[in-house]
C-alpha cells in the first residue's frame, strides 16, 4: 500500500475506534438502553432504544462536520482551516479539563426523548468535534488520490465523505454500546452499571487535546 493509502486506512481506523470508544462510554447512553429494556421487561425495548441513541449521535456528528465539509472546498485555505480546526478541538479539550462541575443541563431532557438526549450529549461532550480533524485528514487524503477537482465536485465529494464518516462512526458507536447494553441486560446484571463506571472526564478531555494536537502537527507539517 502507498503512503497515502496507509494514511487513509489509519484515518478510517480512527473513525471506527472513536466510535467504539464513544459507544462503551456510559455517558453516551448505553445504560439508557438497559433501563428501557428493564422498564418495559422486553429485549425489544432495549433494541428499540438504540435507534434514537444512534440517530441523535449521527445528527450531532453531521451538524459539526458539515460546515467543515463546505469550508474544505476552499482548497487554497485548506491548511489554515485544518490548523484552526485543530486549535478548536484542543481548546474545547482544555475547557473540558478545567470545567469539571457535575453537569445539570442534560438531566433536564425528559427520559422519553432519547434521540434529543443523545444529540445533546454528543454536542456537549465534544464527541463530534473529536471527529473533525480526522475528517479533514480523510478529505485531504482522498483529494490527493483524485487530484484537484472543480469546487462543485469537491463539495459533493466532501459532503459524501462527511456522511460516510458520520455513519461509520455512529455505526461503530451503537454496535459497541448496544453489545454492552445487551451483555448487562442479559448476563452481567445491574451491578455492572456502577462497577464499570469510571470517571472518564479527564481521559475524554485528554483525548480531545491529543486528537487536536496530532492534527495540528500534521497540519503545520503539511
Amino acid at each position, binding site marked *: 500500500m502507498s503512503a497515502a493509502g496507509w494514511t487513509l486506512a489509519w484515518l478510517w481506523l480512527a473513525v471506527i475506534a472513536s466510535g467504539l470508544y464513544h459507544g462503551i462510554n456510559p455517558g453516551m447512553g448505553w445504560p439508557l438502553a438497559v*433501563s428501557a429494556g428493564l422498564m418495559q421487561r422486553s429485549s425489544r425495548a432495549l433494541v428499540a432504544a438504540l435507534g434514537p441513541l444512534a440517530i441523535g449521535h449521527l445528527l450531532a456528528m453531521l451538524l459539526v462536520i458539515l460546515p467543515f465539509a463546505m469550508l474544505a472546498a476552499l482548497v487554497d485555505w485548506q491548511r489554515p482551516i485544518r490548523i484552526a480546526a485543530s486549535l478548536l478541538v484542543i481548546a474545547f479539550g482544555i475547557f473540558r479539563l478545567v470545567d469539571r462541575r*457535575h453537569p445539570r443541563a442534560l438531566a433536564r*431532557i425528559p*427520559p422519553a426523548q432519547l434521540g434529543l438526549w443523545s444529540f445533546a450529549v454528543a454536542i456537549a461532550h465534544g464527541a463530534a468535534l473529536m471527529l473533525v480533524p480526522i475528517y479533514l485528514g480523510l478529505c485531504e487524503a482522498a483529494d490527493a488520490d483524485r487530484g484537484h477537482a472543480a469546487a462543485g465536485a469537491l463539495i459533493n465529494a466532501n459532503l459524501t465523505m462527511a456522511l460516510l464518516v458520520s455513519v461509520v462512526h455512529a455505526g461503530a458507536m451503537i454496535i459497541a454500546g448496544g453489545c454492552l447494553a445487551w451483555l448487562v441486560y442479559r448476563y452481567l446484571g*445491574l451491578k455492572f452499571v*456502577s462497577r464499570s*463506571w*469510571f470517571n472518564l472526564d479527564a481521559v475524554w478531555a485528554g483525548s480531545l487535546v491529543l486528537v487536536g494536537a496530532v492534527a495540528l502537527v500534521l497540519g503545520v507539517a503539511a
Partner: protein
Amino acid sequence: MTMRPDPTFHASPKLAMEAPVENFAYTVLLSPDHSKPDALAVIDVKRGSPTYSKIVHTVRMPNKGDEFHHFGWNACSSALSPLAGHAFLERRYLIIPGMRSSRIYIVDTKPDPTQAKIHKIIEPEEVFKKTGYSRPHTIHCGPEGIYVSTLGGGGKDGTDGPPGIFIMDCETFEVLGRWEIDRGPQTKHYDFWWNLPRDYMVSSEWALPPQFENGIVPEDLLSNKYGHRLHFWDLRARRNVQTIDLGANHQMALEVRPAHDPIREHGFVGVVVDTTNLEGSIWTWWREGGKFHIEKTATIPPEPAPKDKLPPLLQGFGAVPPLVTDIDLSMDDRFLYVSCWGTGEMRQYDVSDPRKPKLSGSVRIGGIVGRAPHPNGQAFAGGPQMVEISRDGKRVYWTNSLYSTWDDQFYPQGIPGAEVMANVGANGGLELARDFWVGLPDGYRAHQIRLDGGDCSTDSFCYPSV
C-alpha cells in the same frame, strides 16, 4: 468529584437491599425551648459494638432556635441516572434545614461519621433572596441537584406567596432558585418524592406557617383549613399536571412514599386526621392511562378515653385520634410502616397488593393515654413518630417527637427524646429490640433519622429490581 460512583449508590432497590447493613444512624436533635443550639447526633447501630445504641458523636450548631426536623443527603442512588451520564458524586454531606430559622447547615460526614463537622452554613437571607421561599423542610437528591421543599413563602410569617421547592447545587451547595415553572393550584406544601424514569413528582400539603409555628390552630383544623390535596408534577417540565383533592375532612396529607422500584407506578400517602370521625388513613395513589388516581385504602380508628386523661385540646372529643404523622415503605415495597403518634402504636401493613393493605404487625409504645413503656422498662413519652427502615428491611428505627409546639399541645407533660428499634420477622411482624434504646441528652427531642449508606426514605432508583 470522584473516579468511581460512591459504593453506596445502587442501580436498583434489590441491589440496595443486598448491600452491607448500616453502622450509624444520624438523628437530628432539637431544643424545643430554643435554650440550646440544635444538634446532629451520630448513633452507633453496629451490632456487637461496645457503644451499640449510644451517641458516639454530636455536632452542635452555632445558632439557637433553628428547629431541626427533616434532613437528607447531598447525593444518593439517583446519581446513577443514565440521563445525567455522570455518577461521580459522594454520599458525604448531610443537608440539615432549620425549619424555624430557614438556615441550612451542610455537615460533612467524612472521613468518619464520628468526626462529622459543619462544612458550610447557608444563612436564611440567601434562601429568601434567591427563592422567595422560607422554612426549608424535605431534602431529596435528584436529576438537577438537591431539591428542598419549603413550608413558607416570603414575608415575616411566610404567607407572602405560596411555598414550593428550590434547587441547590449538589457540590457547591449554592442555592440556585425555584424549581416550579407552573405550580397550578398548589398553595401549600409538605413532602414530595418522585419516580425518576417515569419522570413524575408527587407533592403533599400540611399547612401555612401561621397554622403550625405557634401550635396547631384548632379552629382551622375543625374548619378543614389544613392541607388536603396531592399534586402531581411533570418532573423535567417542572409543571403541575394534576391535583387531587382528598376531601376537605382529610386534614394534613403528609408523607409521600412512592414505590422504590420505578417499574411500579404507585405510592402511598398518610392523612393525619379525618375531622368527621378522628380516623387516620392511608391512601394509595397510582398512575393509569396517563392519569393519576387515588383511594383511601386503610383507616385507623380513634380510641375512646376518659376526659381527665386527655390534654385540653382533645377533651371535647373524649377520644384519642391515632394521628398518622409519618409513614415509610420498605425497600422491597412490601411493608408500609405507619406511625400512630396519638395512640402510641407503630403499625406494619403488608402492601404486596398496594390497594389492599393488610395489617401484619404492630407494637404499642408511648401514646397520649396508653403510655406503654419500652420492654426494657423505660418510660417512652410521646408516640412513634419519624420512622426509618434499614435497607434490608429487617430493622425499623423511630423517634418520638412531632414538632416542638405541637408536642406541647398533645403531650403537655413533655417529651424527653428517645430513639428505639424494632426487629421485623421474615414474613412480617414487629418486635421492639430490648437492647436498643438511645437516651438523648436532657432537654433535647429527636426527629428524623438517616442511616449511613442510605435508607428507605432517601434513595431513589433509576432501574427496576430484576
